[in-house]
């Protein structure tokens, strides 16, 4: 093992430690929110560990992380994304189970996009640099999908949109 290997080993160990610390912080957000809402614990914080690990990686992005000059998302944006994900799990996991967990989490310049996907639709929610929510709803998921989108909406509106794909209204 040469000096570079040793340096790499310690760098990786430090990174892993930082990541574990960040995941623990996000799991604490879950516990705080559950206490705040007096919600019955319908899911374990560990259920969201893979999602929080993705958020932790996104939290470590540096300027120009996409090679097109993107800004890294702020800590406030990461925290807001975590709170949104927890709110959705609390509201919908008792009846929707695994579908209440985000299908994908991805960064964009200055923000984070969280996507939920079911057989009947998909909802992209953007948490923008100022913490505002935007969305794109795709219903149909077939050869003729219908789209609806908007910006600057509140958390309750996001939850109503998620209900549309997790609990679609029967046709007819």
């Amino acid at each position, binding site marked *: 093992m040469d000096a570079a290997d040793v340096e790499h080993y310690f760098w990786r160990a430090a990174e892993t430690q930082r990541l574990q610390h960040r995941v623990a912080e996000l799991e604490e957000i879950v516990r705080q929110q559950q206490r705040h809402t007096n919600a019955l614990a319908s899911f374990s914080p560990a259920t969201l560990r893979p999602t929080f690990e993705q958020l932790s990686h996104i939290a470590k992005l540096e300027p120009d992380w996409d090679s*097109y000059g993107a800004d890294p998302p702020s800590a406030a944006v990461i925290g807001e994304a975590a709170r949104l994900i927890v709110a959705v799990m609390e509201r919908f996991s008792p009846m929707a189970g695994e579908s209440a967990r985000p299908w994908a989490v991805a*960064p964009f310049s200055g923000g984070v996009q969280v*996507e939920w996907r079911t057989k009947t639709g998909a909802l992209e929610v953007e948490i923008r640099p100022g913490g505002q929510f935007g969305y794109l709803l795709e219903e149909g998921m077939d050869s003729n999908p219908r789209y609806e989108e908007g910006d600057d909406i509140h958390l309750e509106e996001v939850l109503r949109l998620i209900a549309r794909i997790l609990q679609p209204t029967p046709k007819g």
Partner: protein
Amino acid sequence: MEVERIEKEDFLYRRVAANQLNPDGTVSSAAFKLHGKADPSLSVDLARLTTPRESLDRARNPTSRLGQLNAEVPIGLGLTVRHAPIEGNVSHSLVEGATIKAQYRMMAQATILFDLSSPQLARS
């Protein structure tokens, strides 16, 4: 540098960060957004004026991937695709005019990633 006309038959390259890939390996529309809205002036490379390797090497992050998109897709969505060379990148082009997010969701769905083992990405 002469400005080229981009036709429907042309192909475009767009670099995609590894954390902008969906769990099924497709490209997230987040890769086409600026501050949470459709990027009104999206940078791409015109394929016939560069190579996949050259385009990918413009990313400093070694985990970046390269997506390919037929110019017919944004043109068909009513967007403008124009050649806009810059210093150090003669293939640089712009997709302009996006006003709704659905346009970029459709573009993301039509983007095909180069396989990392593709001979086109081999270093010469």
